[in-house]
């Protein structure tokens, strides 16, 4: 029991911080106590959440993906172009965008694996490529869907106040958690992040797993872009600027170790909610600037990184 507690306590710490933040906000602002506000934490941050889910896989495998923000923007432009200007049906346009995102990620994963290039640089290049492509898709850097009925009706869909965006985010979290725990592929992700050469010597499928991880991150980012279009009825090449850094912050605050091998999607969900609460609070306070939220996120990030180090030290004692 004690062993289990020490093993999971970074996750517990994240949970405690989240709870404290939520209770504190609920006490200070009556508006925070409503169920609707609770569901909005998910709905408003679905794009970030989806990106963070993909990022969790990448970081667990010992890598990093800096392209997600740009891929989100590019995906939103693509969907708006296909469904709006080219008038593709949504059931065709959305899967096409998802496939493009996954293929883009797989391409980066392939470069990283085959040529042993640093993920930081490959995905940095990917970030510029994706953002450039997004700008290329329209001279106006923005494509309005106008009166696109199927997208509009999707934006109104909700279950118990959770919008479609929130539901997709929650589904992604659930599926990812299952895959990481119960599938050989998921365990291989941990093994690679833990010790790549050991994973190879154990005869594990390193190449497909690594490429798959980046493909999944691209897929999640594309889904984030689609969710954004559904919410705003438009594709925009300038959205999600540097969103990858928020995603990384959420993953690390959620207890996933940046070096790989340790962490969970559940932690990432908690991390995303912490960021969600912090960025929501200024809306309730008239004279609060947004620099305040940045400060808190920075402090939390430092706190959690230190916590990880300390807990590791304790366990090795």
């Amino acid at each position, binding site marked *: 029991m004690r*062993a289990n507690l020490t*093993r999971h306590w970074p996750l517990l710490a994240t949970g405690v911080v989240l709870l404290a933040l939520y209770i504190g906000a609920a006490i200070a602002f009556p508006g925070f106590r409503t169920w609707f506000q609770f569901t909005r934490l998910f709905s408003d941050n679905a794009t970030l959440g989806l990106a963070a889910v993909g990022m969790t896989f990448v970081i667990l495998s010992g890598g990093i993906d800096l392209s997600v923000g740009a891929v989100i923007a590019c995906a939103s432009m693509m969907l708006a172009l296909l469904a709006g200007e080219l008038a593709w049906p949504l059931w065709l346009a959305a899967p096409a965008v998802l496939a493009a995102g996954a293929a883009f990620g797989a391409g980066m994963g392939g470069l990283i694996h085959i040529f042993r290039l640093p993920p930081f640089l490959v995905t940095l290049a990917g970030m510029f490529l994706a953002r450039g492509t997004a700008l290329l898709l329209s001279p106006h850097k923005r494509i309005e869907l106008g009166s696109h009925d199927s997208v509009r009706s999707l934006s109104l869909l909700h279950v118990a106040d959770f919008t479609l965006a929130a539901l997709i985010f929650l589904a992604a979290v659930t599926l990812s958690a299952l895959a990481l*725990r*119960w*599938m*050989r592929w998921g*365990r*291989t992700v*941990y*093994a690679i*992040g*833990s*010790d790549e*050469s*050991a*994973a*190879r*010597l*154990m*005869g*594990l499928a390193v190449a497909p797993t690594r490429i798959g991880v980046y493909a999944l991150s691209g897929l999640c980012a594309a889904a984030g872009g689609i969710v954004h279009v559904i919410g705003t009825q438009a594709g925009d090449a300038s959205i999600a600027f540097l969103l990858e850094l928020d995603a990384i912050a959420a993953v690390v605050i959620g207890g996933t170790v940046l070096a790989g*091998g*340790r962490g969970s999607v559940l932690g990432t969900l908690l991390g995303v909610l912490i960021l969600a609460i912090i960025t929501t609070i200024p809306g309730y306070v008239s004279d609060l600037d947004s620099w305040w939220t940045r400060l808190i996120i920075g402090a939390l990030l430092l706190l959690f990184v230190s916590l990880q180090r300390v807990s590791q030290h304790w*366990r*090795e004692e």
Partner: protein
Amino acid sequence: MADALVEMREIVKTYPGVVALDAVDFTLRAGEIHALVGENGAGKSTLIRILTGAERPDRGRLLLNGREIHARSPAEAQRLGVAAVYQEINLAPDLSIAENLLLGREPRSRFGWIQWGEMRRRARQIVRSMGLEADVSAPLRDCSIALRQMIAVARAVDQRARVLVLDEPTSSLDAAETGRLFDLMRRLRAAGLGIVFITHFLEQVYAVSDRITVLRGGRCVGSHAARDLPRLALVSAMLGKAASAVAAERASTRRADCGGAARLVAKRVFRRRSIQPFDLTLRAGEVVGLAGLLGSGRTEMARLLFGVETRDGGTISINGAAMHRHSPRRSIRAGVALAPEDRRAAGLVPRLSVRDNILLALHASRGWLRRLPRRDQVALAEQFVRSLSIATPDLRRPVAQLSGGNQQKVILARWLLMEPTILLLDEPTRGIDIGAKEQVESLVADLRVRGMAIVFISGELEEVVRVSSRVVVLRDRAVVGELEGAAITAGSIMERIAGPAEGGGHA
């Protein structure tokens, strides 16, 4: 040989400029523990890499159960039944013991989901069958190195390995842990596995091995039943000197007057898993040689004395000052210099000039503000280049272009410039040519006469005999003897390295 499990015949492997293996034969039988021994560069690792499919031989044949095999990767060799457990254990530390045992072969349902209950059950079974006790759902990270080592062995055995290579598995284990690993090895031997065991510890070689194969300089110099190979014969085979010839060799004449002031006094100094408690008094005007096989604790001793590693107990005082919170910085201030084994790590900056490399430490000690005038810099550097006869066309030449011996002298020059009273030299002559060796040796003699206290580490016995006024002999991480004056001969050192159990065997 009917029961040969592995036969390696006339294996040749060359790397650019080096013949790593020169027609080496090696035979491993089922149900035996076979020790593979040799000093650095003997070719042990290359042979193992070929056996486990990590390298391909240039020539020669590798037979497993009488059939020729050509494994192109460790994974392929594993499938054929050859598994290796290396010193740096190849497992995923963040996953549980159960996963590390069964990863890649985990029990799965029809839909591909991992069956954790079944997995833990199977893992418990494996762990128990190995005679171990462990919570299989604990992450490997939380286990001792010894247990990780044994989990790696268990994984290999459970994958139907017939040949198990253990590459220095005991180097970070304590005595009790080593005992447990040996029990496991004996159990596996009884089950019919062939085990190749690599270690630097002679005690361990005799404790578990049935046969011993000695490699030296890329050649096999003998393969014997352990009980037929006396320790002295083993040591002389490893070092390449006939025991009788060595014993007959006279020690060079030397003065035994080492009556200078005590410079460095170490009392009951030890570090767990590194070196057993030892005493050492180093006086002005003497050279203390540290002799022993690779891994016997020579380097560890020097590093403890310098404060690179922190000791677990004992006291060290340098020039009368007790080193409480010992660190290299304090040692240097107290007048100690250490020239470590690895010249790159010693801080030679390859692209900087000879002059700058020599003056580096001086700059550091003076700080940035009190710069030495350029004229003085050149004069100092020139003086050392002359006195150490460093062969360089000019002072501006990058150090990288110098030969190994001259690089070594540049390092020495740097430390001598600091005017230390105590000099620790770890393998100062390794990899340099004979002429340069002689120069380094005569320099050491010179410094001794001038009153410096010197610790001299070398794997070459003759060299230790030539330069030392006193020799401390180490074996298996403990000081096992001390020789002085005329008693210092290569033969007497070798006898002490081999140990008291003359005749070897399972004593």
